[in-house]
């Protein structure tokens, strides 16, 4: 059999014919298997959604309880039949609830990784290597210039800066789902025991994390009238908020941002960032290569990001690799365009 009999790139997303299901579909479909809760992978309006319980909870918090007609929770490692295919979800280490999806059919094993990282993250289940024949990988940071430093070192920079400028507020631009909560947790582990302030846009997701058992200490929503009193505070907000009027009402704010992109100077300067923290929820170049080797897969498909370099490297390793050039991924989190605004999702439910 050919890998294409099991998985087929289509404009709607990756389609699995023997399961009659799409993985992370871009448009509403009858049956969706969802790797994680970021908006470019998890969209509302599908009929049936299979995902980890955490991802389902995050989708419900962001899109409303009626984000789909029927939910099928998949615990990590549990096998289930979808059509003729044996499906299981395995930790991807990207954000809370994130999973790689393993598909087995007629003895052929494919793993669709979604987004993933292997660096330790106290807010997400650690990445698990899943052996397979076909590995479908992301390549957000698929260039040898991207090697992420230890996140503790980056968070220490933030705390140093707060000590150096106690009269200023530190505004940290970080994506609402995943990065924000990881930073909160990293700050706690670094000994920061004061309350952590957050922009209204991340309250709901942060509460969901807490409800799912991730202890983030005291987090406080920033009210407009409190801003001028927040000297010496750490405030976490969406990256776009750094450039808005909202940010200017804090005492002499320092623009901080946390992203893997900031490894490249021009990227930090493009965003007007004064204190760049290289903290990423995606695999860096070394992790991507290590993972491809670890899976033992002989065929590699690259979904999105800097696919050319990774495909080239696979060739030098004697692996068959092809870029899928799927359109639509990389629009949230650390996707291709860093400046991308986060989607505004109504609390009541999916828009039509």
């Amino acid at each position, binding site marked *: 059999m050919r890998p294409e009999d099991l998985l087929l790139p289509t404009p709607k997303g990756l389609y699995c014919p023997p399961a009659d299901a799409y993985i992370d579909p871009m448009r509403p479909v009858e049956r969706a298997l969802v790797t994680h809760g970021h908006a470019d992978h998890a969209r509302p309006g599908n009929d049936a959604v299979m995902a980890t319980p955490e991802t389902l909870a995050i989708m419900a918090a962001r899109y409303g309880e009626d984000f789909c007609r029927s939910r099928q929770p998949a615990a990590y490692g549990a096998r289930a039949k979808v059509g003729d295919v044996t499906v299981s979800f395995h930790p991807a280490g990207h954000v809370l609830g994130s999973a790689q999806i393993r598909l087995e059919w007629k003895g052929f094993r494919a793993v669709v990784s979604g987004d993933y990282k292997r660096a330790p993250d106290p807010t997400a289940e650690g990445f698990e290597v899943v052996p397979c024949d076909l590995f479908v990988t992301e390549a957000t940071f698929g*260039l*040898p*210039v*991207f*090697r992420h430093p230890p996140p503790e070192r980056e968070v220490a920079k933030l705390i140093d800066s707060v000590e150096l400028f106690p009269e200023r507020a530190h505004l940290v631009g970080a994506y609402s789902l995943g990065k924000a909560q990881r930073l909160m947790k990293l700050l706690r582990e670094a000994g920061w025991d004061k309350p952590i302030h957050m922009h209204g846009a991340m309250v709901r997701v942060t509460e969901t994390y807490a409800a799912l058992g991730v202890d983030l200490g005291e987090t406080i929503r920033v009210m407009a009238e409190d801003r001028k009193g927040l000297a010496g505070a750490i405030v976490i907000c969406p990256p776009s908020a750094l450039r808005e009027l909202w940010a200017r009402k804090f005492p002499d704010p320092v623009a901080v941002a946390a992203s893997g992109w900031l*490894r*490249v*100077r*021009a*990227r*930090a*300067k*493009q*965003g*007007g*960032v*004064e*204190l*760049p923290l290289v903290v990423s929820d995606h695999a860096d170049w070394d992790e991507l290569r290590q993972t491809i080797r670890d899976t033992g897969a002989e065929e590699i498909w690259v979904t999105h990001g*800097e696919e*050319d*370099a990774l495909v*080239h*490297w696979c060739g*030098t390793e004697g692996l068959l690799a092809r870029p899928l050039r799927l*359109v639509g991924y990389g629009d949230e989190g650390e996707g*291709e*365009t*860093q*400046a*991308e605004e986060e989607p505004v999702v109504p609390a009541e439910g999916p828009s039509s």
Partner: protein
Amino acid sequence: MNRFAFLLDRLSYEPRRNAKIRLMAEYFRETPDPERGFALAALTGALSFRHAKAGLIRGLIMERVDPQLFAMSYDYVGDLAETVALMWPGETRANRTPPLSEIVEGLATTAKLDLPKRLAGWLDALDETGRWALLKLITGSLRVGATARLTKTAVATLGDGIKPDDVELVWPGLEPPYEDLFAWVEGRGDKPFAEDPAPFRPPMLAHPLEDSNFRAFDPAEFVAEWKWDGIRVQASAGTGTDGKHVARLWSRSGENVSGAFPDLVEALTFDGAIDGELLILREGRVQTFNVLQQRLNRKSVTPKLLAEFPAHIRAYDLLFDGGEDLREQPFEERRKRLEAFIAREDNPRVDLSPLVGFEDWDGLATARADPASAGAGEDAAAVEGLMVKRRDSAYVVGRPKGLWFKWKHDPMTVDAVMMYAQRGHGRRSSFYSDYTFGVWTADADGERLVPVGKAYFGFTDEELAELDRFVRKNTTNRFGPVREVTHTAEQGLVLEIAFEGIARSARHKSGVAMRFPRVARIRWDKPTAEADRLESLEALIAQKEAAG
């Protein structure tokens, strides 16, 4: 080296001028000689190494990484030093990091053959920020937003009552590592040198004149002159205490550009300081910026180049007449002195920029619209607008309000279709920010788009992110780093391109070349079929030729 690398790192992210000065001053205060002197040399661009060049860096990295991965990474990062600093393999650390002074001296004195090994040793010993700083030193431009002037300002703050201009005056006689300069500034030594007879004096700059805000001014209080499309320079010359005559050519930002224009510097035999425009003149005729650009693009200044592209100064203002400082005097008075000065010197390389007579603002607007008929004659193509100056304005450093205005031509515009995109460099790096655009034409095969130019600025950071996304989602083909994007009569993106001039060109397939094209607006709303045609660009040229 670590401390210096840290300084460069901080400077590169610090947007505020005063904070930059503070960071540098703090570094100079805390760092001992000669380390800080070499840092000062690096920051003011006073270092250059004969054997250590970009080629050496490329050679080293090619031995260590896959060349294709390097090419893709460089294309993405857009900066050689940074790409190599990030890609340099291994975590090997020597027991010590080399001090900046060791590196600077090593780069200057190590034999060419031994240099690769020496440099690789340093790169192994440094962390990624250190590697970046070292490689930036070698490639010659730090680009951390600290000009020579700003750095000297920081040095001045170490002293008591020492002004940046005081540092500027002693500067040309000094050499790295500047121990005598620091000793003087810190009050431990004498003023180092006899005063420089040809120093840089910071120039006076103008505000743009908006159509709305000047009608209220009294035209009688202003004079106007052409704004020539060349390079603003200051020609400073004088006789030192040793009796020697010294002449220098300074750029607007205080960089010494004498080396690129020996023909002109040699002709600066006067004592004084002129503010003017550097232009190429052939048989008395001012050439367009296009021609000047050809001289600027050459790396080495050859006799042939000097003969083909003779540099001149068209004088706007006189700051010093001999030793006499005229800057406090009103413009009108300085203008009289300038006219007398030019007449007296009778220098074939230096002439006077004429005033443009006008009765009222409408009259001036007419002159601006048609410089050829308003006195610029056959030089009109090299005019990029008008300068409007208060008659009583002193020569004030910086950009004072309400004294000088520039009133540039309105740009021409054309609606063109994006055809290809490439990643940019510097601030725009890693985004698809350089766009080749085309207009419609018809030939035997029917309607097609022909590329007419390339634009890489004019948009905001938000617009850049949208354009980048458009390119990625509409790529139809790839040629190395170049992406072809959809451009059919049905699909594609129309860009409104603004430009300053247009001329016939044999080098371009379309036969036309634009000057200074940039994206004025993104026309998400406009169907590609409605973009402009090549014929309308040709008509613009014909119109200009008829007028000229």
